[in-house]
């Protein structure tokens, strides 16, 4: 039976994907589980695995093309199997949707063989087909979408995933037609930290398709070349998300300057005794934020239609700059971790963020985010809130400045931070008290290690 290869929804926000590369050519033999292609989603690059075996008979979406979730991008079938109907249907839908080759939405799945007639009075739901192994399914790329791009998951699985902040799209489904069921979410929750990174590193050259008018500019000519940089999936998501934020979320901003002298001294003392896992300034900031959030739970909150949700966890997003965008890996339960654990975990997350090896659940569901542009010599800046978080802290560089201390001018190491607050959730004084605590933490850093 022919196996359809579709543009799967690989993250909850993914609406379309770009085909980076086909790993196999038409006519190549395919085993179930083989890597067929690489797809750029809005967050990471991911492999498409074969769900069935045979021969890759047709490639319907070529490399470099973007296609909506659910589009039929290829067909695996036996060498002599007639797949004309599938191809015709795919093309018809492509024409109907006006999207050209890349706009096709896949036809409904080919009819599964009829389930065996029940030998009993059981009124059946369609039984799983022979293609669905009764035993534990292989861990494969998510396949729980039908041709319509809809993620198949049982209601309770959806509910559990939502409550635990895990992305359904990253979970292989073991139910009929790949439906994600309760046990799959339970397994994902058990193995999430140890899961193999599903994303692959992004090749350096992809992501920006530069069409330059000339390879080299003539001498004496303009020093810049005009370029059209196609939106990457990540750029589209950044744009959409930030517009969603600055539009409906009423931001206000609070700035304060913090004396970092004692914090830096403490860091130096700590690191003098450490061979590895040295504590960075960033780790101190994460720790201070986590401690301050515990003391001001009204900041660790989200606006919802009917209520403000105060989170029972402190999950800190860390904005990490990438070549062509940014991503915010999440340091979970930061309030329950010491500086050393924060240092080790945040470093790992940031490294894997830069190599695009984060799993969806590793960059979703933060309760508060820190963005630090100090390394770019930025004194201070304002950041845009990442909903549904209620605040984001923008951190500038630490530099020596002259300050007046008890009537005397002194040179001190100072750092400016600006918190953007969602005014629906956080009022001015609430935000100010949070920043006051944060500042006191860093200026009396021993409090943090209590």
């Amino acid at each position: 039976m022919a196996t359809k290869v579709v543009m799967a929804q690989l993250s909850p926000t993914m609406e379309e994907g770009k085909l980076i590369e086909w790993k196999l050519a038409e006519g190549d033999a395919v085993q179930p589980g083989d890597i067929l292609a690489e797809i750029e989603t809005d967050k990471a690059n991911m492999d498409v695995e074969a769900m069935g075996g045979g021969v890759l008979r047709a490639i319907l979406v070529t490399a470099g093309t973007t296609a909506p979730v659910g589009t039929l991008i290829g067909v695996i079938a036996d060498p002599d199997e007639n797949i004309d109907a599938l191809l015709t249907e795919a093309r018809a839908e492509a024409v109907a949707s006006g999207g050209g080759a890349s706009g096709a939405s896949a036809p409904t799945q080919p009819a599964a063989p009829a389930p065996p007639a029940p030998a009993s009075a059981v009124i059946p739901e369609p039984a799983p087909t022979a293609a669905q192994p009764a035993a534990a399914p292989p861990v494969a790329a998510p396949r729980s979408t039908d041709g319509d791009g809809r993620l198949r998951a049982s209601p309770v699985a959806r509910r559990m995933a939502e409550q635990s902040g895990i992305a359904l799209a990253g979970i292989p489904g073991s139910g009929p037609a790949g439906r994600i069921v309760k046990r799959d979410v339970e397994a994902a929750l058990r193995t999430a930290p140890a899961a193999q990174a599903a994303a692959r590193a992004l090749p350096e050259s992809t992501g920006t398709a530069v069409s330059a008018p000339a390879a080299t500019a003539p001498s004496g000519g303009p020093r810049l070349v005009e370029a059209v940089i196609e939106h990457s999936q990540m750029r589209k998501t950044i744009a959409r998300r930030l517009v969603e934020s600055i539009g409906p979320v009423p931001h206000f901003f609070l700035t304060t300057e913090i004396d970092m002298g004692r914090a830096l001294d403490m860091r130096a003392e700590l690191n003098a005794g450490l061979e590895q896992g040295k504590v960075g300034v960033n780790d101190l900031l994460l720790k201070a934020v986590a401690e301050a959030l515990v003391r001001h739970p009204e900041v660790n909150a989200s606006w919802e239609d009917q209520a403000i949700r105060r989170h029972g966890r402190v999950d800190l997003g860390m904005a990490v700059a990438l070549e062509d965008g940014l991503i915010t890996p999440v340091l979970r339960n930061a309030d329950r971790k010491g500086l050393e654990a924060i240092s080790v975990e945040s470093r790992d997350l940031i490294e894997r963020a830069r190599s695009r090896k984060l799993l969806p659940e590793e960059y979703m569901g933060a309760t508060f985010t820190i963005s630090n542009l100090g390394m770019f010599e930025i004194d201070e800046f304002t950041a845009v809130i990442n909903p549904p978080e209620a605040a984001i802290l923008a951190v500038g560089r630490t530099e020596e400045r002259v300050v007046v201390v008890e009537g005397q001018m002194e040179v001190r190491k100072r750092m400016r931070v600006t918190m953007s607050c969602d005014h629906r959730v956080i009022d001015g004084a609430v935000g100010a008290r949070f920043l006051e605590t944060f500042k006191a933490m860093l200026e009396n850093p021993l409090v943090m290690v209590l």
Partner: protein
Amino acid sequence: MAVITYREALNQALREEMDRDDRVFLIGEEVGVYDGAYKVSKGLLEDFGEWRVRDTPIAEHGFSGMGVGAAMVGLRPVVEIMTWNFAHLAFDQIVNHAAKLYGMSGGQFNIPVVFRGPGGAALQLGAQHSQAPEQWYANVPGLKVCSPATPADAKGLLKSAIRDDDPVVFVEGERLYNMKGEVPDGDHLTPIGVAAVARPGSDVTIVTYSKMVQTSLAAAETLASEDGIDVEVIDLRTIRPLDVDMVLDSVRKTNRAVVVEEATPFAAVGAQVVDDIQREAFDFLDAPIARVAGLDVPMPYARNLEKLVFPQPQFVVEAVRHVCYRDRPAVV
């Protein structure tokens, strides 16, 4: 607590209620001299006399109407239907009179009548004598429908039914009459409209009633030993009014449900239960709700065919495995 049969439990209920309230009387075919076709009324004629235990001609419509009329004027009749298969002749009295008169008289007449008798398939009694009637009467506003699965509930529910001011259709399990079980001593009452947990469990909820409770409990044992699946069995006990809350509480806990009934599947009690669950507990479901019911055919007489039509424990086992996504490949 005494261990007695379901039949004896019903007899005790009748005897106790006739002792307690002299407005209570029993009427029906062969309930007196013959002690009842199934001996449920054994000894009652001797003890209460022919004014209280009345043999009638074979005329269901007539003596059911007498019951309704007696209830209208203040008595509390128990009308024995020899088996519910014969009650079709009395359908007009039960549905058009007993169920309607309270409302149509503007509340002037309560109809405290109990229609009781055995229902469901026994063994090789053919299409006309193998019917489970609960769903037909449960479709009628104005009727209450009870269907006890144990001796304790047979006694407790029948006593509650006799004391109830509304008409009650009381369906006993013909195959349950010899079932033995503990029955609490004293004035034991089971409330109408309250289900019971027949077996607590955590992985899947079976909702069922009457003799399918035994079938489901047997299936639960198989599933526990062969699959490690921990089944909760809910015995509805009363079909109308239905104890939806207990069903929902269980499904919210287990996330999976199988509804088991002996009757034919179309527009059945099980369909109603599925509807309640999907509307009220949608977000808690891990799988579409499965149903096990009799096949949608007149019951065949042939023994081998009857076994295919009538729900067997193995059918329940397979349905539970299915909703747990634990189907086994068919053995060829």
